[in-house]
């Protein structure tokens, strides 16, 4: 086993363990904190895929913004009764079964694909990936239209969130 494999396995176990706790723990704040651990694990995965930019972006967006917003929302919408009852609905075993079936099906499908065992190709040397990505996102020959649409989407989400959460005083 190479060092890379060891790091991958440890990260995978921690991440998946965290993910399982996210969907099973009853206390929602704890679930959010486990979610943060899981997101960290995923950030390490991006690092293993030599996408450093995404590692940092993952921490900024998911942990710095999304997870903290979630903790906020959980604190703002707490109710005593909620914590007493079951945290899962009646069909939880069906959901678990479906997830298992889907996982098996996905792994089986992947394993029949010829590219499943592709080994790590060498990264193109002397290329600043961040620079290439930045240029691609704003160059007219690249992906400027998806980029602009994403910005419009974010703006729409911003306005939408303000409108929806606005407390009307009447």
């Amino acid at each position, binding site marked *: 086993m190479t060092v890379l494999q060891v790091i991958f396995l440890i990260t995978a176990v921690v991440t998946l363990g965290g993910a399982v706790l996210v969907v099973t723990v009853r206390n929602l704040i704890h679930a959010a904190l486990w979610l*943060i651990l899981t997101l960290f694990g995923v950030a390490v995965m991006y690092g293993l895929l030599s996408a450093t*930019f995404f590692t*940092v972006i993952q921490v900024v967006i998911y942990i710095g913004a999304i997870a903290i917003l979630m903790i906020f929302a959980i604190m703002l919408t707490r109710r005593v009764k909620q914590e007493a009852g079951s945290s899962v609905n009646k069909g939880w075993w069906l959901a678990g079964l479906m997830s298992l079936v889907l996982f098996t099906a996905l792994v089986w499908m992947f394993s029949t694909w010829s590219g499943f065992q592709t080994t790590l190709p060498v990264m193109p040397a002397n290329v600043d990936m961040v620079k290439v990505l930045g240029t691609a996102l704003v160059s007219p020959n690249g992906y400027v239209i998806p980029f602009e649409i994403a910005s419009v989407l974010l703006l729409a989400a911003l306005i939408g969130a303000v409108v929806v959460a606005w407390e009307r005083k009447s």
Partner: protein
Amino acid sequence: MSDPVNSIAEWLRMILSSWGLSEGLITVILGVLGVVILASFVLIVDIMLVWIERKIVARFQDRFGPNRVGPYGVLQPIADVIKLLIKEDIMPNGADKFIFNIAPIIALAAVLLLWAVVPLAPTIIGADINVAVLYVVAIGSLGTLAIIMAGWASNNKYALLGAFRTVALLIAYEVPMIIALLVPVLLARSMGMQTIVAAQSTWYIFVVPLAAVILFISSIAELGRTPFDISEAESEIVAGFHIEYTGMKFGLFYAGELLHALTVSALISTLFLGGWRGPFVDQVPILGPVYLFIKSFFVYYLIMWIRYSFPRVRIDQMLGFNWKFLTPLALCLLIVVAILDKLLVGTSQAVYVLVMLGANLMIVWATVLILRKYARVERKRIGEERPVAVPPDTESSELVGQE
């Protein structure tokens, strides 16, 4: 002997490889060693900061400050640490034990992690990653997380209030901070710290002083220091998120807070004051950390000066200041700098710097004009006759009747 750190590392690498260790393992060992040395060095500086901070605040307040333990009281921090270590460790009732215990560790670790990207000398840096500026923002969000965890786990209303206030503050002031951070990134055309320092043949504070000021103000807010210390606000919510912490757990928060101030100073020095740049640093790289720390302590002194001279502002004033003033100003500056940078391609360094500086001063002038106009309107509004609280007519007649 021009670069002791790297020569020692080379020497250790030779010794380790003569022991027959593999190349990968040696890299890991040297990496861990580097982390331990850097972290311990920073923490020792942190202990000294306690003394510096207390001594300087005493001078601001016309006192002597610590002067009993050791000469000039320099051993006072040691006494403080011993005191904190032997305090009783109190766990509040109904606290979430694991989160309660891990929050101070994350708070201090979030600050220590920032030192990984601070370039100490041309050849000495923890990790010269090409997204260092984003890394700083990312690690900053970990500090927010630690505060939320501490506030929530304490099972205390004041702590939770403090955490809420802090998060509102941090999320708000992150916006102008990131925009201000973008300005040096734009000028140096890189997010790597070493590249930014190397690009500063003219310190960026002389090119874009406004960005430095915006970053400085929003950094003070991120630190939660006066005038932005509503997250602690002793007179309102007692001590905010660390109200329930005792002993060394409180000590970790305290150390993290002090070190955060120095770290932010180091980052500002790196981004705007030329980092390790200074005379003879090319011949003797070991002078780099000295210059960096001189500059950092200068910025740190400014932060302390503001801290002990200003009163606390209300939370609505603070958020208003951020959203209505600082963020638009930062956006405006970023747009102007980006356009000018494009227009000035190919001009000489002197012209470039002068035009940029002029543009910055123009923005400042325009801002001052707008502020004066606003102040005139406000003054008029405040000066107007306002309705005085009078009881309704019926009651007042009753009162008259009773007399």
